[in-house]
């Protein structure tokens, strides 16, 4: 009789495997952290090397296109009106929004040269992971920046940044919502107009 196929051993081995195997979600957690590590690396490089405002904006837009789930973010800022929009309207808006977003938020990184970004704890928020980070400015004051990461669009990407408790996504939903109201819900017109904003 071959000891290796003893049923009891097999059960024990099965329990051990179940106990030590990583749950399916843990892989995503590692991936979420890895994404933010790479993202933060690129942002650090940007704030410490880029000099002109134009260069800052274009570098930031490239980073955003690479790491953010811009389809989902831009769609969400349109609110319920996104449901009535055509694919091509959403695509045009996404492109315009991405530029607006880069112009608006790249300004926030001015004056951070010499500061460090360190990663902190990552929280499992159920449907997504929140990777905590801190911008250390001159060792005196820290700025909390959390990245909300999901892979529900197929690959890990961030869909919201929480800066000192303020969600960028919710802030942009208010902003874009108000801009859209002023244009009677005309997404095409909004796409054209936000090219000038940010």
């Amino acid at each position: 009789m071959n000891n290796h196929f003893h049923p009891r051993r097999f059960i024990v081995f099965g329990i051990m495997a179940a106990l030590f195997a990583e749950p399916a979600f843990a892989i995503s957690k590692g991936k979420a952290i890895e994404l933010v590590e790479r993202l933060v690396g690129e942002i650090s490089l940007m704030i410490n090397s880029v000099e002109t405002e134009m260069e800052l904006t274009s570098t930031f837009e490239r980073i955003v296109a690479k790491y953010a789930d811009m389809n989902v973010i831009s769609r969400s800022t349109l609110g319920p009106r996104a449901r009535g929009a055509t694919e091509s309207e959403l695509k045009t808006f996404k492109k315009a929004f991405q530029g607006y977003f880069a112009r608006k938020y790249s300004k926030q990184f001015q004056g951070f040269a010499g500061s460090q970004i360190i990663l902190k704890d990552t929280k499992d928020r159920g449907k997504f992971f929140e990777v905590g980070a801190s911008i250390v400015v001159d060792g005196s004051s820290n700025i909390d920046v959390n990245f909300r990461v999901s892979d529900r669009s197929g690959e890990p990407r961030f869909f919201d940044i929480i800066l000192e408790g303020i969600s960028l996504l919710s802030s942009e939903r208010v902003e874009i919502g108000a801009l859209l109201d002023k244009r009677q819900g005309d997404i095409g017109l909004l796409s054209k107009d936000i090219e000038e904003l940010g």
Partner: protein
Amino acid sequence: MFFINGQIPISSLLGMAMLVTACSQTPKGFDNDPFESVNRKTHEFNKLIDKNFIAPASAGYRSLVPDLVENSLTNFAGNLSLPGKVVNNVLQLDLKSAGKNTARFVVNSSVGLLGIFDLATSFGFYENNTDFGQTLHRWGLTEGAYIELPLFGASNFRDGVGQFVDMTLLDPSSYVLNEPITTYRSVASVSALLQARQIYGDQIDAVLYESADSYAQNRLIYLQRRRFQLKDESNEVYIDPYSE
């Protein structure tokens, strides 16, 4: 039994009252704003005051007064507000922060020449900022309806009451100080405000004068920042754009 001799015991009445209050408790999110139309008028008033008085005064102050003097005045005002913060630390049973703030106050009032110099920070005693709104939060009060106060700006029912209590009741400095220090203090407080308006100028301008709906943006930012500051996770709302 609830009914004894046809009477409703007081406890069940109380229970019913509590149930009703619990049900009418503030919803999560940012739409607990029953006074929106009044708030929006106050917001326009506040913007008018900022645009015509505070922002220009702040710019003038900044260009006329040297940084060193600005910092000293802000330090002086900040130091005198510390005893009130210690009272709140104690009311929250946060004795560690009470100790830190007391140490700050003692060091800066003596070696720091009546609070003009902030030496405590260089010794590693940072301020643990707090207020009576936070105390009420610790005691279990929810934030209540959003209000925009004239001159004081964004608040909510709980924190508005807190601000009033901080200014009137919980400020040991105001009980102890006499003229001319009280006048110096008022001047220093205004100076601190003007300095803050300048330091956070870009952010304030972006919200008040560059956003499409400054009222809604200001409300959102205030509520999220405040919940973050109080670590009020029960009230945290997050958007899941994937399930829309």
